[in-house]
C-alpha cells in the first residue's frame, strides 16, 4: 500500500562565495549530479507509487474487469459501496481493529521498552524475544498461530483449557476471529515499536531523573513528567506508522480466517484483494482503495497535527 512517510530531500547545501560565472556552472553541475542521484528513486516511485495511484483513481470511476474495454460509470462504484453491507461491516471492523490495536501495541511497546531499559538479568534475551516477530514473515507466523489457536488440535486450548481458559471455536468463531487476528497483529509489531522507544529512551539525559529523585519524585511521576513527554517525538512517529499498519491489516486475515466466518474478521484491504483479484471487479476494488487511502490520510494528518503541538524539550 502507500507509505505516507516520504523522506525529505537532503538539504540543498549552501555554496561558498564564488564568482558568479563559475558559481552558475558549478550549480548546474551540482544540480545535474543531484538529479542523477535521485533519478532511480524518482523513476521507481513514479512507476510503482504515483502511476498506480493515479491509475487506480481513474479505475475507481470505471467498470473494469481488466478484460475488454472499461466502461465509465461515474460515481457508481462509490454509490454501491455505500449500499454494500459487507463494505460497511469491513469499514467498521477496520476502524475497530485500528482503534484497538494501535494504542495497545504502542502501550505495550512503551511498557516493554521502559522495563527492558533497566539493568536486568537476561535483558538481551527478552529484548530479542520481543523483537523477533518483527523480522519473521507474518504469513508464516500466522500459519503457526492458526495451529496454536485451533480448538481441536491446538496447543493453547490443550494447555490452557484445563485452567478454564476458553478459546471458543478458534479462528472459526464469529465472536473471536477478529480478536485472534488482532492478537497476532499486536504480537507482530510490538517488538519493532519497542526498539524505537528504546532508542528514544537513550536520548533522555540521566540528570533529569537525578534531579527528580532529589525532589522526591516517585517512579510513576518520573515517567509522567520526564519519560513520556520526552518520548513525544518517538511517539509521534510510532503512532503514525502503527495506525497505518493497523488500517492495512491483511496478512494474518488472509492466512488465518480468509475474512471469515461470514466476513466477521474481514478488513478493507482483504475486501480490496477479494473484489480485485477474485471477482475481477477492479473498478470497485479501486474505489475501496481510495476510501481507505482517504481514511489513512485523514488519520495521519490528524496525528501529525496532534503531536506537533505537544513536542517537548527541556
Amino acid at each position, binding site marked *: 500500500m502507500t507509505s505516507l512517510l516520504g523522506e525529505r530531500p537532503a538539504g540543498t547545501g549552501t555554496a561558498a562565495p564564488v564568482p558568479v560565472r563559475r558559481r552558475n556552472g558549478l550549480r548546474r553541475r551540482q544540480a545535474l549530479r543531484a538529479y542523477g*542521484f535521485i533519478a532511480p528513486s524518482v523513476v521507481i516511485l513514479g512507476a510503482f507509487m504515483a502511476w498506480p495511484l493515479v491509475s487506480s483513481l481513474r479505475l475507481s470511476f470505471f467498470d473494469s474487469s481488466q*478484460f475488454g474495454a472499461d466502461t465509465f460509470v461515474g460515481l457508481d462504484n462509490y454509490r454501491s459501496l455505500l449500499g454494500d453491507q459487507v463494505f460497511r461491516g469491513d469499514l467498521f471492523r477496520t476502524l475497530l481493529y485500528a482503534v484497538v490495536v494501535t494504542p495497545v501495541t504502542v502501550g505495550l511497546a512503551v511498557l516493554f521498552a521502559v522495563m527492558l531499559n533497566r539493568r536486568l538479568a537476561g535483558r538481551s534475551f527478552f529484548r530479542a524475544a520481543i523483537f523477533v516477530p518483527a523480522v519473521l514473515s507474518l504469513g508464516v507466523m500466522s500459519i503457526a498461530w492458526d495451529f496454536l489457536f485451533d480448538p481441536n488440535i491446538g496447543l493453547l486450548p490443550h494447555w490452557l483449557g484445563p485452567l478454564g481458559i476458553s478459546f471458543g471455536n478458534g479462528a472459526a468463531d464469529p465472536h473471536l476471529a477478529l480478536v485472534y487476528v488482532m492478537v497476532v497483529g499486536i504480537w507482530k509489531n510490538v517488538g519493532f515499536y519497542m526498539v524505537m522507544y528504546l532508542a528514544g529512551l537513550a536520548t533522555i539525559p540521566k540528570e533529569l531523573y537525578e534531579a527528580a529523585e532529589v525532589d522526591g519524585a516517585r517512579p510513576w511521576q518520573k515517567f509522567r513528567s520526564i519519560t513520556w513527554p520526552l518520548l513525544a517525538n518517538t511517539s509521534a512517529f510510532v503512532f503514525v506508522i502503527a495506525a497505518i499498519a493497523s488500517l492495512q491489516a491483511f496478512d494474518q486475515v488472509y492466512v488465518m480466517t480468509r475474512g471469515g466466518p*461470514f466476513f466477521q474478521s474481514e478488513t478493507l484491504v482483504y475486501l480490496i484483494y477479494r473484489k480485485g483479484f477474485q471477482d475481477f471487479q477492479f473498478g470497485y476494488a479501486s474505489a475501496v482503495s481510495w476510501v481507505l487511502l482517504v481514511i489513512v490520510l485523514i488519520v495521519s494528518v490528524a496525528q501529525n497535527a496532534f503531536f506537533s503541538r505537544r513536542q517537548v524539550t527541556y
Partner: protein
Amino acid sequence: MFGRHKAVATMLVGAAALALAGCSSGGSSASSSSGSAGGGGTTELTFWTGLTGPDRPAVEHIVDGFNSSQSKVHVTMQITPWDVLYQKLLPAYGSGNGPDLIGIDSNQIPVYASKSVIQPLDALLGSDGVDKSTLVGPAVDAGKYKGKIYGLPIENTPVLLYYNKKEFTAAGLDPTKPPTTWDEWIADAKKLTTGSGPDGKPTQYGLALGVHDTIEVLPILMWQNGGGIASDDGSQVLLNSDATKKVASQWAGLVANDHISPVGLSGADADKLVSAGTAAMEVNGPWATTGYKNAGIDYGLAMVPTGPNGQQITLGNTTSLALSAKANKAKTDAATQFYKYWTTVDSQTYFALNTGFPPVTSNVPDSALASNPDVAMFSKYAKYARSLAPGQPNFASIQGEVFDPAMEKIENDPSSVNATLDAAANQLKSQVQKNS
C-alpha cells in the same frame, strides 16, 4: 570533471531504466511464447494449468509422453498454483497473450466461455477426435456452458465417504458396513462422537464437515432432499426452498447441538482432523488418500449415504481442458491429437494408478485398476456425480460470498436458517444466470 559527473548521472538513470526493463520483460516473456502454427512444421501449443498437487508428476509424464510420441505437435505446459493461475488468466486473454490450452476447474469454464475467450470443443469430439461415448458422462456435462461443451475432462472424480475403520470398531460399529442411508450415517456419527475435552467439546468427532474453502459437502445433502443452490439450468434459485431449508436446519443442528462435527471448518481443517484421528468420517476426493495413508489412518471408502429422496448422488470435481477462441485450424487439430493421447486407455490407466483419480474415460477395464482398490471405488461411483453450479459465470461469488458465509452463519446459529437462506437466495437472484 564535468564529463565524469555526466557519466555518473547517465549511469544511474541507465541502471534504473535497465532495472525497469528487466521487470517488464520478465513479466511478458512467459506469455509471449504463444507459438506459431508453422506450415508443415511443428505446431506449438501452450498449456496453462494449476495441477500442482500430488497429481503433478503424472500430468507431466503424460505431456512428455505425448511430445515424444510424435513430432507434429509440441505442448509446452506451465503449471502455477490455482490462485495465481486464475488471477492472471483473464488479464492474459484480455491482452491477447492467453495460452492455447487451459486446464481449469470445470466451475471456472463459464467465466471464460461467457467472455468468449474459449471456444466450443465439437471439433475435438468429431470424426477425427475422441469418441464422446467413451468419456464419463457427468465429467463432460461439467464443462458445458449454455448447452455447448467448452471443457473436456482431463481429471474427474466424485467425492466419497472416508471412514476410520479402527474408530468404527472402537465404537462397536462394523468396519465392513459403512452407513448407506442418512439414518445410519447420523446414528454412526453420533456414536463416533466421544469424549469430553476443554469447553465441553468432544475429543473425537463423528464427522469432519468442511463449510468454507473446501470441496463442498452440504450441497450433496441438499440435492439428496431435492434442494440445492440453484437448478442446473439456472432458471431457479433453490437455496431458500423448503427442501434446502430442511436439510440446512437438520445438519446445522447435528453440528451445533450434537457436535458431530466442529463448527465452521475449512476443507484443510477437516483433513487435519481426519489425519489426526480426531474425526472419524469425512466426504473427500482421492487426493486425500496419500495424506491419510502417511498419517497411518486405516480408512475405508463408501458412497455418500443416500438421503430422503433415496437417490445415489455425490459431487463431481472436474478439471476441464479448454481451447482458446483464437486457436486456428492447425491448433485445433493439434489440441485434438493431444486430447486423444490424454484419453487413450494407456494414458488413463497410468494416470489413475499414479494419481488415485479415476479415469475420465469408461473404457479402462476394471482389471487394470485392480492394483489400486481406492481408484476402483472412485471410478465405480463417478457416474453419480453432479456439478456444483454448472454454467454459472458468477460461480466464485455464488460460492465464496453467498453460499459459504450463509452456511457458516447457520452452523453458528441454527435458529437463523430461514432468515439467512432467504437473504442469501435474494443475493443469488442477481448472480445466478440461465444456462440453456
